[in-house]
């Protein structure tokens, strides 16, 4: 048996295929699923309404009062409407404090407040199923600043609206389309636990191997086609030129 370069490439393609085959198939299938799922739906863009505008109130508490209520030096202070009132969002060394801009009182975001804020921003009329406190990152809240409240609705998409427990802001919404997408994403990036990192040694190694699998396959293509494979195209063409030639000879 002679180990010509082509034979070696064929041998490698076969063995790389054996080892990587299943993952290659999973990459293709998960990629196909993610391409099919509309990313606007995945991002639940239509589920969240834009912030409703509210005219600025006449009496806004002075800065000194806000600092006093926040209970420490403020590094950043935001004044904005939050659903039915204007609030100060004060960033301090010990976290973010929410202060009512008109009354100057602290606004704690408890379960019922979170529920109210989620309902106000949710585009559907579906009722709330449950309100749960999220302190540790979950699959749904892995990219969000915690703690937060998870407000689950009874709409057909099973949308959960996540509300920050510190600022009362809607951090995002997760629906069944996202949950399906997220499984495909997990399989695609091979981070089976947190579904977050695509920079780990396993996937880097397999990505290199897969690149060789694809490249060796491409090289093999050059040797894989014979004339008989394309005879259905070439034969009629040749027949035609042949005919013309004879016709020309006969005419000449």
């Amino acid at each position, binding site marked *: 048996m002679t180990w010509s370069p082509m034979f070696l490439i064929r041998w490698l393609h076969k063995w790389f295929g054996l080892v990587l085959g299943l993952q290659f*198939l999973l990459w*293709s299938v998960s990629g196909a699923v993610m391409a099919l799922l509309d990313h606007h739906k995945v991002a639940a863009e239509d589920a969240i309404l834009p912030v409703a505008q509210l005219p600025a109130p006449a009496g806004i508490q002075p800065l000194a009062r806000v600092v006093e209520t926040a209970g420490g030096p403020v590094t950043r202070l935001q*004044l904005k409407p939050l659903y039915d009132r204007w609030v100060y969002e004060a960033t301090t060394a010990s976290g973010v404090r929410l202060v009512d801009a008109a009354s100057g009182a602290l606004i704690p975001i408890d379960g019922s407040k979170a529920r109210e804020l989620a309902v106000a921003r949710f585009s559907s009329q579906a009722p709330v199923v449950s309100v749960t406190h999220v302190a540790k990152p979950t699959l749904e809240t892995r990219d969000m600043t915690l703690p937060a409240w998870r407000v689950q609705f009874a709409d057909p998409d099973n949308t959960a609206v996540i509300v920050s427990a510190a600022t009362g802001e809607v951090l995002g919404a997760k629906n069944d389309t996202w949950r399906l997408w997220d499984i495909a994403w997990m399989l695609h990036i091979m981070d089976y636990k947190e579904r977050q990192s695509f920079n780990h040694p396993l996937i880097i190694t397999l990505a290199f191997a897969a690149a060789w699998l694809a490249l060796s396959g491409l090289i093999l293509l050059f040797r894989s086609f014979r004339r008989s494979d394309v005879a259905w195209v070439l034969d009629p063409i040749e027949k035609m030129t042949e005919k013309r030639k004879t016709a020309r000879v006969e005419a000449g």
Partner: protein
Amino acid sequence: MRWPALARSTHKWLALIVAIQAVFWTLSGVYMTAVHIDIIHGDRLVKAVAPPPIAMAGLVEPAHLAHLAPGLKSATLDTQLGQPVYVVQAEGGPALFDARTGQKMSPLNAEQAAARAKALFAEDGAVVSTQYVTKAPLEIQTRPVPIWRVEFEGAWKPTFYISPFTGELVSRRHDLWRTFDFVWMLHIMDYDDRQDVNNLLIRVFTWLAVATAGTGGWLLLYSFRRKRRVRKAVA
């Protein structure tokens, strides 16, 4: 046609269509996995300094902002270049005010934008160019224009985008990000604006890839043989 021949032939013809894209997919995959996403995002290009506490005494009161910016939507008291400022969103668009005098500072000129960029830049490189961009280049296509583009000296051409209206850092780019964006385009096959992961081309090619991988697996069934044992002749 026998089964092995059929498997080989289908795999071969499918591969003829998919092969080049499969090479693009895997090579772009290598880049996206091997270069850490935090480096791509340029986290280390921006100085990580905790913002200082703001001295509130003598500042313009927020109650006054509605007069400065009619149709006030929101306002943020922040620190820029060590000075307290109000970043305001109002009916007339975003604007920047000196929090001590109430004077409007926006739109910022080239020097003011470059100074803010330089103050945020974590490396030593000098500002190479400051440009006023009125048509969003591809690398910040989703961001509002006009915008100041401040490019620095340094590895991979670090570039900061500063809003002339808010003075804030809107975006940071460098060549590793730009390369990522290019290979991402190859990966999702959206050659127009590199955003649509649901385009027809990718939908067709992913299923072709599924079929190629599937027939490849099928072909594997016929590709490994035990070495033929030589049967001893029965005596």
